[in-house]
């Protein structure tokens, strides 16, 4: 096992290569999924605002809120 991890002495180059590539790929999966969630949330807030202006906004941005 330790022989496998040492990669003939090149372990410090081989393992980071695999970790960096696979980590970037994993991050992309989560980023893509959160982009869809964000787009759905934005659409929902927009439609809510259309129906009743100010709804869905944080309290300090609602109409009539103290400036």
């Amino acid at each position, binding site marked *: 096992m330790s022989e*496998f991890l040492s990669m*003939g002495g090149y372990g410090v*180059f*081989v393992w980071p290569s*695999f970790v960096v590539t696979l980590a970037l*790929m994993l991050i*992309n999966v989560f980023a893509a999924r959160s982009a869809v969630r*964000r*787009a759905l949330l934005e659409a929902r807030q927009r*439609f809510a605002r259309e129906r009743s202006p100010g709804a869905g906004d944080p309290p300090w941005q609602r109409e009539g809120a103290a400036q």
Partner: protein
Amino acid sequence: MWTWFNKLASPPHFYRLAGTLAPWFGWIAGALIIAGLYGGLVLAPADYQQGDAFRIIYVHAPSAWMSLFIYVVMALSAAIGFIWRMKLAHAVAAASAPIGASFTLATLVTGALWGQPMWGTWWAWDPRLTSELILLFLYIGYMALRASMDDLQRADRASAVLAIVGLVNVPIIHYSVVWWNSLHQVSSVTRLGKPTISTSMLVPLLVMFLAFTLYYVAVLLVRVRAEVLRRERNAGWVRELVHA
């Protein structure tokens, strides 16, 4: 054929279809990556010249292939969107950029980690390395240009021009090792005739190429869904979707 195409390009239909297909591509890509890792890290023998350092090829070469392939997809769909004013094509281009940029970064990092033990340097201003770095800047410039514009249609058209102009860099990267005297080795796989690499080394590499390509399709489908939602923000089907 044409009605099928029209149906596919209709945003609500594409949104649903992409949602169904993405997990399939994703899981198949994941399974192939595990198989490719096992083949590349365990089954394949060490290289007679490079020892175990050669195994970096199993993430470096597929990443490099994706960095170019995704750029071509991005530029061509941007061109289609620009010429025929197709929203879905612009969405594909916009969705491709972050994925392509990630693979370009992976290519440069794994290349440095391979260059240090083999060439004795992390980086050199070599034609292949420099043109790949320019590719990263093209991706970043494309994304920055889009982010700087609030109007989606203007962002689509302006960034399309940048993507299409940047396409000249792709053949430069690909042929850089042939045209110039590069430090980088020439391709062992896409040679005319027989690849100069043994089967037990080649098979895991081909598996990784396939896995990375399917992975791109999966992430692309998810990202295009987000882009379609942004472009269809006033459409009735989006209204129904968020209130369902």
